[in-house]
């Protein structure tokens, strides 16, 4: 075939690019958002939010694939195996939540410090570096998947440690980006003014970045490996992330309700004391069965049993402040998601965590669908919700500070998104809990934890039904996400009224 013929058949790269550009242009015209409504810091924040939502969609998509493989094990076998889908599912989750947090903080620091972000140019570069790195990591996950047992695989493909599978090169990149981010935060507050919220945020970020380093080393000794691995996972999600959302919630309550700073900050300190007081040594509940000394059974059991207490405090705090202000807010969907966060965090992280945290029960539940049940409700309840609340806060300003309280046009959309997402996740949680109970009884207590015991439990009708129900509620969650994205793109579009000025009282 001559090259001229080939040229005719193959679409010209320029024309493909043009088409994509036109589509993007049409999309932008339809969404009709004006970036000039935002400050420079907020413009950066919404970039983070956009990527967060794309990753949220990826999380759900790969969750659906993994859930399908429980029902049809042959589905995509040898092409996209369960380990790949599940890895992308949980990594997309961790990363979109981090994107949400980083965006929220870029959003709030200008307001909180009273000055422009220091080092914004670096912050923008960091955003593109991080986003490029995340894209490349996901492409390698999908198309290379696994590698030979060599150091080069750990550096370039996959570190194979649940939640922090990203290869070493990406670890270094993520750390560099987080350092730029921390610099922005510290320098901005130093130039403007410090506050209680600013102080807690800064110290928490330093801890968060420092902890990530604990997950970057290879060790032959699996007991040591898992010891340090939990430093990252637990001390992120059960300590520093919780404090981070405490900060975000404190600031949001001032903005949404006009709560008084003194009250909000006092609560924030109480939460920090209770959260770190229980969460740091609560780390021990991951050390029961990995080869660590027996004293961790007592230390981990005791302190992790205390972990729900700060979450109760957060519920009381959020509901009390809302009640004091008679639930009068400038942004209905955002406040609804803050309330969903308070309850979701308490039930998902607090109650569901407590249910299987004592070693006497954990001996049977450890490594069963119990953990998956807890994981689904807690990550959603504690972190997805607060990020979504912030997305609504951001879109309100991006639309030019429009009315988003009672009488918002098409308010059914945000209500349905809220309802479907919550119902979907709660449904999956309950289905997985039933599967977990069944596994604990059949596989562990009766069959004695052998491979045949494992499969005896997996083949039980109650387990299989649980997997089907999980799938159904997975679709409910997906529908909720669809409505959420639609709503975020359209809410306030035709709104002429301006939001009421919030009064601090």
């Amino acid at each position, binding site marked *: 075939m001559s090259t001229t013929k080939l040229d005719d058949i193959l679409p010209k790269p320029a024309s493909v690019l043009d088409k994509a550009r036109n589509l993007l242009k049409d999309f932008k015209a339809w969404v009709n958002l004006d970036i000039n409504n935002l400050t420079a810091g907020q413009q950066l924040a919404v970039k983070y939010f956009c990527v967060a939502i794309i990753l949220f969609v990826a999380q759900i998509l790969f969750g659906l694939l*993994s859930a399908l493989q*429980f029902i049809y*094990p042959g589905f995509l*076998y*040898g092409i996209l195996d*369960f*380990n790949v889908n*599940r*890895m992308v599912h949980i990594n997309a989750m961790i990363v979109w939540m981090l994107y949400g947090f980083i965006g929220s903080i870029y959003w709030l620091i200008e307001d909180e410090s009273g000055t422009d972000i220091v080092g914004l140019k670096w912050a923008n570069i960091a955003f593109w570096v991080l986003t490029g790195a995340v894209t490349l990591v996901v492409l390698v996950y999908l198309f290379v*998947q*696994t590698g*030979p*047992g*060599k*150091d080069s695989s*750990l550096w370039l493909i*996959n*570190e*194979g*440690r*649940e939640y922090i*599978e990203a290869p070493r090169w990406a670890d270094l990149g993520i750390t560099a980006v987080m350092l730029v981010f921390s610099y922005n935060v510290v320098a901005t507050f130093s130039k403007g003014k410090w506050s209680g919220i600013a102080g807690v945020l800064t110290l928490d970020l330093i801890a968060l970045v420092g902890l990530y380093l604990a997950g970057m080393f*290879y060790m*032959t*000794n*699996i*007991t*040591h490996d*898992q*010891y340090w691995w939990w430093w990252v996972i637990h001390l992120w999600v059960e300590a520093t992330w919780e404090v981070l959302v405490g900060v975000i919630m404190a600031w949001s309550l001032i903005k949404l309700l006009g709560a008084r700073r*003194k009250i909000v900050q*006092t609560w924030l*300190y*109480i939460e920090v*004391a209770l959260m*770190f*007081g229980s969460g740091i*040594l609560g*780390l021990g509940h*991951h*050390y029961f*069965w*990995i*080869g*660590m*000394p027996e004293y*961790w059974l007592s230390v981990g059991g005791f302190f992790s049993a205390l972990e729900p207490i700060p979450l109760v405090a957060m519920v009381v705090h959020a509901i009390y402040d809302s009640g004091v202000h008679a639930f009068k807010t400038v942004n209905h969907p955002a406040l609804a998601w803050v309330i969903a966060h308070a309850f979701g965090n308490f039930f998902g992280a607090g109650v569901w965590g407590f249910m299987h945290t004592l*070693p006497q029960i954990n*001996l049977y539940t*450890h*490594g069963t*669908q119990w953990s998956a049940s807890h994981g689904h409700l807690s990550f959603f309840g504690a972190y997805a919700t607060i990020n979504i609340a912030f997305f609504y806060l951001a879109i309100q300003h991006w639309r030019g500070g429009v009315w988003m309280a009672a009488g918002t046009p098409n308010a059914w959309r945000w209500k349905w998104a809220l309802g479907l997402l919550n119902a979907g996740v709660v449904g999956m949680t309950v289905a997985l809990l039933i599967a977990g109970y069944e596994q604990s009884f059949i596989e*562990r*207590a009766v069959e*004695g*934890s052998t*491979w045949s015991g494992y*499969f005896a439990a*997996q*083949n039980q009708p109650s387990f299989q039904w649980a997997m089907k129900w999980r799938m159904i509620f997975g679709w409910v969650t997906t529908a909720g996400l669809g409505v959420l994205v639609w709503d975020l793109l359209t809410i306030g579009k035709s709104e002429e009224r301006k939001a009421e000025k919030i009064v601090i009282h």
Partner: protein
Amino acid sequence: MNETPLWASESFWKKMAIWVTGVSFVILIILTMDSLSQTEAGGKRVPAYAIINKKIDYQFNKELNKSVPVIGEDEFLFGKQLTEQEAAELVDLGKKNAQTRNCMNCHTILGNGAYFAPDLTKAWLDQGWLSKDLREDLMVKFLMDPENNARTFGSNRKMPNLGITEQEAKGLVAFLKWMSSIDTNGFPYNFKTIEAEEE
């Protein structure tokens, strides 16, 4: 009357937050140093890598009311006695493969990971390997070609072919054998080993 009592004041809780966090972190550091030294490979809880030269079992101890690893006489892996250095290298190859082949996103290791495939903590001792004579050979074959040596136990779930070489498979078997000797405080509970069936 309007004055905020100390226990409800911002400054009190600020100090409290700093102290509680500081003290908890110091305790964690102390426990970390102790735990890591108690769990060096070669200690009582986590045996040296050359333990793969020995017979390993996991039996219920009535006095302690939990299952504990029991180390027996010589039982060389692949018929060859290894020095500590050689054993460490082989286990290391297996451990590295366990990471780069992403085992943990289907299996659990020490109970941690995903729940699509069985736990590997005591996989070396599992009765699924039929008999001690067949075990090593079956494990290597399975790891190299899981599709054609599938062990689905009626679930239709098959391990995918991950391109594991023979040497890597032997490394993985060594890693699994070594891991089965770790004292895991009685997890998994009530586990009946391949040794129990033979006795």
